[in-house]
């Protein structure tokens, strides 16, 4: 289970160029804001097309400019946890959770709604609308939604940045359990050194 990323994205004045091979556990992308960390996640998820390079996750080629391979986002099995959680405002929490699950093939699903709720402690939120969730609750639901879509790996974009200290601690514990219990490879973006040191088994400097 690993990342092999070697991509170049031309972006105005400063190009984003990263090259790394991640091992199991959490690989952190670390660097000042504006260095293009989120662009790297977008390239892994298929939301932004690199100008050149190759992305392989756990042996599956997601992008290869030389071979002309560019898997669409819906085929990548990438669980994206956004900084701004991006829950669908017109759907209940339960429908948000089931959104990806319903679209996944049965053999891609590896966690049920009950298991997800128990794991993340969100069972009591199912009937609510996203606008009635606190920041910490919304982030837990966003993580749950990514897991339930049958994600084979997670990319997380500063998932703690909008939370207070107590919630931060709580979500960090959760991410450690995803790493250790569920054994999902995680690519993690942050500009907080303490966060990165605690979570990551490997750090990639961007910019």
């Amino acid at each position, binding site marked *: 289970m690993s990342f092999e990323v070697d991509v170049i994205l031309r972006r105005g004045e400063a190009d984003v160029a990263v090259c790394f091979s991640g091992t199991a556990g959490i690989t952190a992308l670390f660097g000042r804001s504006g260095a293009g960390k989120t662009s790297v996640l977008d390239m892994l998820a298929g*939301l932004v097309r690199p100008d050149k390079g190759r992305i392989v996750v756990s042996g599956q080629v997601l992008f290869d400019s030389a071979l002309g391979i560019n898997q669409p986002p*819906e085929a990548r099995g990438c*669980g994206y946890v956004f900084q*701004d959680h991006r829950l*669908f405002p017109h759907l209940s929490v339960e429908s948000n959770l089931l959104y990806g699950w319903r*679209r996944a093939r049965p053999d891609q699903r590896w966690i049920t709604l009950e298991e997800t709720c128990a794991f993340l402690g969100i069972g009591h939120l199912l009937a609510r609308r996203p606008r009635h969730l606190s920041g910490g609750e919304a982030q837990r639901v966003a993580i749950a*939604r*990514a897991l339930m879509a049958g994600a084979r790996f997670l990319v997380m974009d500063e998932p703690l940045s909008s939370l207070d200290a107590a919630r931060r601690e709580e979500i960090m514990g959760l991410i450690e359990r995803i790493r250790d219990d569920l054994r999902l490879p995680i690519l993690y973006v942050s500009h907080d050194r303490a966060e990165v040191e605690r979570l990551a088994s490997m750090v990639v400097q961007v910019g």
Partner: protein
Amino acid sequence: MLTPEEWGIVALSLKVSAVSILGVAPLAFACAWALARGRFFGRVLLDALVHLPLVLPPVVTGWLLLLAFGAQGFAGRWLGELGITLMFRWTGAALACAVMAFPLMVRSMRLSIEAVDRRLESAARTLGAGPWRVFFSITLPLAMPGVLAGLVLGFARSLGEFGATITFVSNIPGETQTLPLAIYAALQMPGSEDAVTRLALLSVALSLGALVVSEALARRMGRGHVL
């Protein structure tokens, strides 16, 4: 309160407006989508064309419809071969209403499409939904209040359509005489002040009702409500 003829006028007006709006809605949505999301050559021209009926004198729009859909017009001849004629028919009144209401519908729909957060669409893609699924499960439901508001606004506009209708299909009681045309005809006749008042009040009530519904729908936009 109303005479049977006046009820007939109301029924005709509602029929003409409903048919015109429902008929033209798909085209209005497609135009709104192209203007909101499209990046193509001629976009500015399309934008101007769509808005043309809003600024042209209605009588000119009616005259252009006559040129196009009259017996000698290019569209009129083509429809004539199919056995369809719009001249002096209620269907022609519906066409005139559709053209006049088109810009308002496109504007409202376009705003609601532009207001949809595209980051939600990319989130849906990462969750396994292809472009069409994203459209039907995310974009359309989120834009729906604005789309419906556009329909209601277009409906209200077409209930009040006068200039293009009377120019294109004339003022024929029972066939093309909608509410505003009936008010105009009554005004020409001495001693029909009561009829004018009744029809005018009815017209105000219908338009006001449609505007209230449209405004209520527009307010739901962006708050994550879905009907």
